[in-house]
């Protein structure tokens, strides 16, 4: 490869790397910048970019919905790099207690009440305020602004939160009445959260959010919202005891007076007793418990057991609601069912934590109709025509399915890769209506948030192994290629060095020999003819010089491969042979048999050197008149033959003077064999055979093509 080609290749390579780096940084910059403005896709049922932390999040009617009274359910999206921006949404509360609103500049979110760092502004029903504060794995409330007319559940409010610098302001508007409230806080430059994501959050109530819209904000937006408003600067100052008690008084005023738990029916049964009592009773029975699943069927649980209520009246129930159910008990195999049931909402409550059990425990049926959490490996995921999601899972030998019923908004998230270990939360059901007798039980999920990936699939999947093996093969080939290329460079360097030596010899030693010969002849001419002894000595010296000159020329011609800087075996041999016999009566015939192919540089070099040695022997010692050089290309080997019609020799008589030992060594170094046949008076034949695998890739870097036309 010439220097220019090598430089060109380097330029191409480095510009490709540089281009890649530029593209990467542009993509990174885009990732940091983009996403704003953001608008939700709830209207088309898409929530892939959202992440849930607690709660039962689903999308219906173009809005995101949390149907649980979880303490601190969050639904997060956006980029942790968002800095100065505003988020707004329409918010509706689904209960008489608790609050719901928007999170801004959130980072480090986890499951838990205030488990995130960021700011939150929400509407609170009990004291009818818009509240703003900061969460930092704890809650610091800064300001409560009373909403004129109060905050009422099942009514839409428009909430907007702006964060600019270290100031966060929020406004809430009742679109029906036009009443509004503003709350704002400002923090130290040192301690404020400057960037983060957005989120929907509710606390001890369900909520519905729609039209979530995020745009970059400037100082003007902040001034417009909270220009004249009194911004709270106080940090982490909790309410005083009196304020707490006053707040409670306001909040509990209605509750204190309400006949919260009706006296009739006077007696309710623990749910476990239903199984025993069912046989004997036909009269209605009452139970109390918390809702653990509202859709597709109502399931209620107390601390003793769970019960299913298939045809419940259409009360708008949320997970966690405390209810009283009166109905006729029917016994199933493992749990009871209440038919013709009347369900009455007692009060909103907090969803109870699930029972952590193993898959084998669940398979016994003892946890039928209970809210459970278990871990298993995911086998397959399928989506049915009614858009339900059915997951097949297993743990050890036990198989079961998890079903997320029929809302069209179910999204298959990226965490659902087959083979991963999932933590599944939901209602354990052994009823054949769901199991179809295919598995001992199924788990009815409440939302996608009930699936949590514990660990990804093991790395030794079929695909990964194939990828790793192909990677190894690819890199080995690459390493091989580089090794061969390096070898080639090394050989080339050797050849160049030989050529330099040849030039040196030619310019110094050979010139000196010529000079000495010339001087000797001059001395002989000028010396008196009668000094016979001296003349004889001069003659010997002249012959020695001539011989030395010859030797030097021979060395030069072997060092310099035919004056070519590449190895093309036959042309090079022909060139060197012609140079050796120039002016003499010897004829040299060079020919190739079979279709020629590329040979490794190292082998070509050895063949050339040994070939030249054989030709030189024929010229100097054999007194031949014809020398034949034949290269025979066979399927797996190359045979080079040099034969002459000279006097031949007896092997035992010749010493290393012919360089036979050197020839043999050289041929053996490339794994070849040499065969020298000679009959006194009938010529000599030197045959070199080298076995070579045919190249399997055209353009393989260690081979050079030469065409037969170049040979003469």
């Amino acid at each position, binding site marked *: 490869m010439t220097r220019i080609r090598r430089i060109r290749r380097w330029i191409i390579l480095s510009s490709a790397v540089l281009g890649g780096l530029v593209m990467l940084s542009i993509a990174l910059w885009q990732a940091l910048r983009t996403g704003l403005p953001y608008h939700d896709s709830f209207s088309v049922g898409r929530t892939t970019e959202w992440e849930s932390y607690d709660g039962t999040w689903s999308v219906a009617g173009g809005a995101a919905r949390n149907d649980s009274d979880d303490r601190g359910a969050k639904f997060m999206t956006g980029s942790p790099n968002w800095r100065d921006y505003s988020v707004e949404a329409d918010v509706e509360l689904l209960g008489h207690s608790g609050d719901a609103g928007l999170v801004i500049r959130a980072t480090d979110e986890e499951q838990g009440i205030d488990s995130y760092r960021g700011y939150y502004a929400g509407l609170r029903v009990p004291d009818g305020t818009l509240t703003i504060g900061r969460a930092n794995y*704890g809650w610091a409330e800064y300001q409560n602004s009373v909403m004129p007319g109060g905050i009422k559940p099942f009514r839409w409010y428009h909430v907007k939160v702006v964060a600019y610098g270290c100031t966060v302001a929020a406004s809430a508007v009742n679109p029906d009445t036009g009443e509004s409230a503003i709350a704002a806080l400002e923090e130290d430059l040192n301690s404020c959260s400057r960037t983060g994501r957005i989120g929907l959050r509710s606390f001890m109530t369900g909520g519905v959010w729609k039209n979530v819209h995020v745009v970059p904000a400037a100082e003007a937006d902040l001034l417009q919202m909270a220009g004249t408003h009194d911004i709270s600067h106080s940090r*982490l100052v*909790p*309410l*005083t*005891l009196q304020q*707490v*008690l006053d*707040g*409670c*008084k306001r*909040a*509990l005023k209605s509750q204190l007076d309400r*006949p*919260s*738990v009706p*006296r009739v029916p006077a007696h*309710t049964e623990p749910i476990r007793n239903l199984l025993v009592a069912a046989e004997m009773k036909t009269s209605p029975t009452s139970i*109390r*418990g*918390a809702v653990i699943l509202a859709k597709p069927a109502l399931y209620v649980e*107390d*601390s003793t057991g769970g019960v299913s209520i298939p045809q419940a009246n259409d009360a708008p129930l949320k997970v966690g609601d*405390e209810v*009283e159910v009166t109905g006729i008990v029917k016994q199933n195999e493992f749990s009871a069912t209440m038919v013709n049931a009347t369900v009455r909402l*007692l*009060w909103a*409550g907090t969803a*109870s934590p699930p029972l952590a059990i193993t898959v084998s425990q669940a398979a016994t049926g003892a946890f039928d109709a209970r809210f459970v959490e278990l871990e298993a490996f995911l086998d397959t995921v399928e989506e049915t025509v009614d858009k339900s999601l059915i997951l097949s899972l297993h743990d050890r030998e036990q198989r079961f399915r998890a079903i997320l019923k029929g809302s069209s908004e179910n999204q298959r998230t990226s965490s659902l890769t087959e083979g991963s270990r999932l933590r599944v939360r939901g209602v354990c059901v052994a009823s054949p209506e769901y199991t179809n007798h295919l598995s001992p039980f199924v788990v009815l999920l409440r939302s996608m948030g009930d699936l949590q990936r514990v660990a990804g699939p093991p790395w030794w999947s079929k695909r990964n192994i194939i990828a790793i093996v192909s990677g190894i093969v690819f890199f080995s080939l690459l390493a091989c290629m580089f090794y061969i290329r390096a070898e080639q460079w090394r050989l080339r360097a050797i050849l160049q060095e030989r050529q330099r030596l040849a030039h040196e010899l030619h310019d110094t030693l050979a010139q000196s020999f010529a000079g000495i010969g010339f001087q000797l002849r001059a001395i002989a001419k000028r010396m008196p003819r009668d000094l016979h002894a001296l003349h004889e000595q001069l003659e010997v010296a002249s012959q020695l010089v001539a011989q030395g000159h010859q030797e030097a020329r021979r060395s030069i011609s072997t060092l310099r491969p035919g004056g070519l800087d590449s190895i093309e075996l036959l042309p090079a041999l022909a060139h060197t042979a012609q140079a050796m016999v120039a002016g003499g009566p010897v004829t040299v015939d060079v020919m190739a048999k079979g279709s020629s192919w590329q040979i490794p540089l190292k082998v070509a070099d050895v063949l050339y050197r040994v070939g030249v040695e054989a030709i030189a022997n024929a010229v100097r010692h054999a007194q031949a008149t014809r020398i034949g050089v034949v290269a025979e290309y066979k399927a797996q080997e190359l045979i080079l033959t040099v034969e002459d019609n000279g006097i031949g020799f007896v092997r035992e008589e010749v010493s290393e003077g012919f360089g036979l030992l050197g020839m043999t060594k050289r041929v053996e170094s490339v794994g070849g064999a040499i065969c020298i046949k000679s009959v006194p008076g009938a010529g000599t034949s030197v045959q070199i055979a080298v076995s070579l695998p045919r190249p399997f890739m055209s353009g393989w870097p260690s081979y050079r093509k030469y065409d037969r036309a170049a040979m003469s």
Partner: protein
Amino acid sequence: MGSADEAEAEQTARELLNSEPNIDAIFALSAVATLGAFRALRDEQNSKVLLVGCDQQYDLLYYLSLGKIDSIVAENTYEMGELGMKIVIAKKRGENPSQVIKVKPVLITLENMSAPEFVPILIHDWRPMP
């Protein structure tokens, strides 16, 4: 009584009041159980049975301030968390921390609920003491 379900606690308290008319006091071991018992006592209009509850929940404090609950056992939850973290850190350092640590609770009554040393615990004010 110590149920984690308000309705259940209420029912238990009610059954207790009916079956044992001569009891003097009810001790409830959680905020939820206290609230359940409170509802039962209120609905039975029973004012002679004293209610001693647990946990410093705001609505319980309110009922305490009204004299409807006799007293509340309050815990310094901040200290509990801090000690818990210290155990975790000690374990990480290879030390062998004590397995049981007792945090002294305080009994809050109408009389002492405004005392400066108890107010921070009641309103969850965990700023360092001045």
